[in-house]
């Protein structure tokens, strides 16, 4: 998936190219939108809207080469619009939504860890959590994340570092980071 994601040289122009784009990026974008909106249905609605918008505007975006970060940026903007236009529904428990083919014990353990991480990330400023998730989940570089969030690269790095520092302090207070 990530290998495919890195092979998007330019803004797609045909339906076939869009199908490949959707295939390569849908999980990362939905995951990103989910953490913005706290709800899978809304997240998928937002991402679908973005793909359609990306198709609609394909000719005027054909010079854009940083396709993945721009898609994330579009999703981020769309999520902001969602926030403005809707009352945010309660977040669904992440553990009910993740897919896995591991054994039950491993799955439960992983789910518990995911829940804990979500709680921890929920305890730091959202802009810092956002950068950490984008770097960790979406394989975007700091320079690409800067495009997504509309900030400078040093600002992105600072948010990342401050976020990790806060998580580190929280974990230390709980008795260790390991």
């Amino acid at each position, binding site marked *: 998936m990530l290998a495919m994601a890195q092979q998007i040289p330019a803004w797609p122009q045909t339906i076939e190219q869009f199908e490949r784009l959707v295939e390569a990026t*849908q999980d990362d974008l*939905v995951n990103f939108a989910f953490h913005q909106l706290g709800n899978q249905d809304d997240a998928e609605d937002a991402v679908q809207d973005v*793909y359609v918008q990306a198709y609609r505007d394909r000719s005027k975006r054909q010079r854009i080469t940083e396709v993945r970060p721009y898609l994330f940026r579009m999703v981020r903007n769309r999520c902001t619009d969602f926030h403005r236009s809707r009352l945010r529904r309660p977040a669904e428990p992440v553990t009910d939504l993740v897919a896995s083919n591991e054994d039950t014990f491993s799955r439960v353990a992983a789910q518990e860890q995911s829940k804990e991480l979500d709680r921890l990330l929920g305890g730091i400023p959202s802009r810092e959590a956002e950068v*950490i998730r984008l770097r960790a989940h979406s394989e975007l570089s700091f320079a690409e994340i800067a495009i997504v969030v509309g900030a400078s690269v040093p600002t992105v790095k600072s948010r990342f*570092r401050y976020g990790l520092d806060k998580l580190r302090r929280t974990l230390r207070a709980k008795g260790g980071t390991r």
Partner: protein
Amino acid sequence: MNCQETIYRMTDLLDKEQGPKAELVREHLANCPACRVRFEEHEHIFESVRRARRIAASHQFGAKTMKAIANEAALEATTTGKFWHLQGWRRWAVAACATAQLIFLLPSLAPHFGGRRSASAVLAQSIEAMSNVQTIHMTGRMRTIPGDNFELIGAEYDFVPLELWREYNPSRWRVEKPGRVVVMDGTSSTLYISQLNQYMKASTQAGFVEWLRPLLNPESILQNELDSTKMKPSDATVTESNGNVTLTVRRKAEGSFANTWTKNKSIDESDHTCIYKFDSATKRLQALQVVIHTGSQDVPVLELNDIRYNETPPDKLFALQIPEGATQIIAPEQMSSAVDAILGPKDAAEYFFNALAQKDWNAVLGVYPTSTVPDLVKSYYGGLSILSIGVPFKSGIYAGYFVPYRIRLYDGTVISHNLAVRNDNPQKRWVVDGGF
């Protein structure tokens, strides 16, 4: 590098690609336990987040999204009318609309495709692919009578070869089977029937090839399928296997069959299934099979298994040479000997057979729309005797009437058949259209 700068720059080690000062940061970490612990804690937290489970798009998300994009493409095509003068855009637009409509008719296709591959995307891509071809050459076979019209099919007939060529720029086509060929050379259409040495010239839109006509515009096939108001979601399915996407469309026979004379004599007048096979890689139409369902059996009547694109057909394919002495089939309004006093279909049949019986060829031309009576008709039917002429009836979708007749030819052979006559022309003239 001191501790303050190292703390500031240690983030670079967790970037996708490490910057030029990464080595200096590593050197400091190797020699400074406090900074090293801090970095290892950052790294551990980051890796924990990275490894944590993520939300995945739902199973149907990809298909739903491609459906939305296909709809957007159709909407875009219908609202960009200013571009429609460009042939390619027009072809794409018409096809895209058809796709969008078909997609609405095929709401439950995604499961057929497994994973996230969507039927709508495949169909939309096939439309795109078909809209871009320059030439098409189809070869196949059809259960019909050599020399008879391109509409006629029958489960009891043997297969005869069939070949279609289509060129888009300039717009020309040719359809051929033994005994009958139609060429549209860009300015007019010409039909030639070799057995009767007859030909007919008409406009580029002449309907000489009947059911086969949509195949000359493959990007419109889906539109053609959708033109049936009877189509329901259950009538169409899409499957994918072995590198092919197969669109299967089932259709009921069209027309009224109080008299079943025309039932199963054309594809439209048969309960039938069209099986369109598209290549998954190229997205182009690869094959077509039509199977009619007669009630007792399912019989393939049309098969196009060799479809080639962007070949360069020789110019002579679109230049039909009519042999000298060929008689011309003319439109009813051009008939100089037309008999306007004929009152109805039975009257027309009686007039026609009486003229043949008396070998009054000028009288024959009163209802038989040709420039002269073909020699084959003269020698075969001249001097016949009428045994009976029955009550005219309608059947299927034919615009005219069928008149049952029984005649004895000059050599003693008795023939029972139905003469096709019609008067759906501006002058309302009764003309013999076939059936002898």
